[in-house]
């Protein structure tokens, strides 16, 4: 199959970048989707948003998801040229979260248990802290130094290269999502039947570890102020209520106008 770059991307069918992002990615980023789309897309030219122009966008429509997140500069550099798209296996339910204990099934570290440090749903990838590592050379090699080696983890495929560990007996297990009596959706180990709870760091975001520990800034509205209900529905429009509260009295009646 010869891969050709397209002049106009078929975004109507392929969807935007945010349409392809995984739920966990969006949750961790805690960023507005419009921002992610704006920073991630590679647009060569876009017609101005004026009525005399048709909506045309010269966009590199094919993007490859990498270990770098789409709103970073590294992703942009990796995606400045359109590359052959990667085929990713569709998965029904995502079972792996940050902070889960997993066993590596392939490679030099097979059989070892580790904690999930990063999840990249778009490629079905997991990074396990300290496992499946390789050495890569970092640092300047121009000032006489040869650089230095850094241990970095390689991603593991969720489908066949890792398995969840049941905390009750520390052995690998397949998992299914079921509902408790309270209506809560939980992971149940198919081998033992026990619930594997979601780790607390699975709900972490870039901005905070837990919503309770988030330090509110100067411009942030406090949570109790946000939740306070002071709306009283009345038979008035928005403008009428504001005029009343400000004491603006308007006796003039607008002349009849016609719309066509």
């Amino acid at each position: 199959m010869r891969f050709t770059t397209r002049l106009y991307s078929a975004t109507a069918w392929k969807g935007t970048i945010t349409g392809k992002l995984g739920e966990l990615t969006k949750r961790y980023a805690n960023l507005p989707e419009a921002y992610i789309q704006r920073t991630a897309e590679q647009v060569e030219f876009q017609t101005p948003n004026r009525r005399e122009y048709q909506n045309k966008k010269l966009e590199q429509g094919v993007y490859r998801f990498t270990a770098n997140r789409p709103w970073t500069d590294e992703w942009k550099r990796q995606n400045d040229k359109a590359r052959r798209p990667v085929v990713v296996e569709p998965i029904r339910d995502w079972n792996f979260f940050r902070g889960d204990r997993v066993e590596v099934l392939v490679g030099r570290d097979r059989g070892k248990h580790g904690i999930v440090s990063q999840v990249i749903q778009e490629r079905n990838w997991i990074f396990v802290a300290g496992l499946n590592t390789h050495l890569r050379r970092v640092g300047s090699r121009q000032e006489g130094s040869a650089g230095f080696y850094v241990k970095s983890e390689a991603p593991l495929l969720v489908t066949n290269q890792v398995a969840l560990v049941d905390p009750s007996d520390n052995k690998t297990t397949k998992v299914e999502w079921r509902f408790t009596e309270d209506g809560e959706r939980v992971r149940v180990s198919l081998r033992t039947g026990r619930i594997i709870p979601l780790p607390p760091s699975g709900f972490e975001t870039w901005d905070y570890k837990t919503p309770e520990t988030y330090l509110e800034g100067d411009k942030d509205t406090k949570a109790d102020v946000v939740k306070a209900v002071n709306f009283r529905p009345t038979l008035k429009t928005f403008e009428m209520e504001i005029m009343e509260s400000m004491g603006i009295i308007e006796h003039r009646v607008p002349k009849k106008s016609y719309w066509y």
Partner: protein
Amino acid sequence: MSLLRRLVVPTYLSQALTRFSCKNNVDRLFSALFLPKNAYRMVSTTTTKFDLMEFFDDKKNWGEGTVRTGRSWTKDELRLKSNTDIHKLWYILLKEKNMLLTMEQACKDESELFPNPERIDKVAESMTNLEEVVRERNRAYYLLETGTTGERPGAEEENFLGLPEYSQFNEYPVPKEENKDYLKAKSEEPVVHPSEKAWFLVRLNEKRIKQKRWERREARKGVKEIIEHFPDVDRELIKEKFPDINVERVIERTNNRHLGNIKPKTFKWNRC
């Protein structure tokens, strides 16, 4: 209008003097209205801040690499608030947006990194949500009282290409039949013959069919790729993800590629 003009010219200088001698905003406002001092209405204004520095961020954030901010207001949260609160929030958000845009430009001028540019998107999202909530409330009132939404009326009409186009109505002081300029402009509009519209629509339809065919073909290729790379994938899941494709047929063709799709090798004695 002419009465007002007669009043302005002689009293301009005295008015200017009174304006500068006023102590607060409310007095200043009323001095411009030519009303006697005892004809007060309840007018509320903000505390006087003649500070252009409001266009800039807090000084402690200048030169910072990151500025932490929370997320945008959601529609559900805004629906809990009264109209007066929402009214105030709009201006707070507007001022914040102006400040962020000023900071972005200032950083560009100095070739500095603008920290956390997603703040602008967060504020813009809050403002769109706010406007939507206000429109909801107004629409509810108008639909109840008048039967129309109260928003700008419009209609879907056939344009010169023969395609349906929603156009917003304009406001006029006289009905359509009496509006000479409008009727003249309408009569001078170029008339497109229905046969020309039909000529265009046939070809547009062809283009749309081609596009749909291309999309279905690309989807089939996508399914084929998935089956080739992952033969054990869940068939039901593929059918859910590609509802318009006959997944079974694609799988059959992928697996039986060696049967009949390759041209048989012709030898000299086989050519007839």
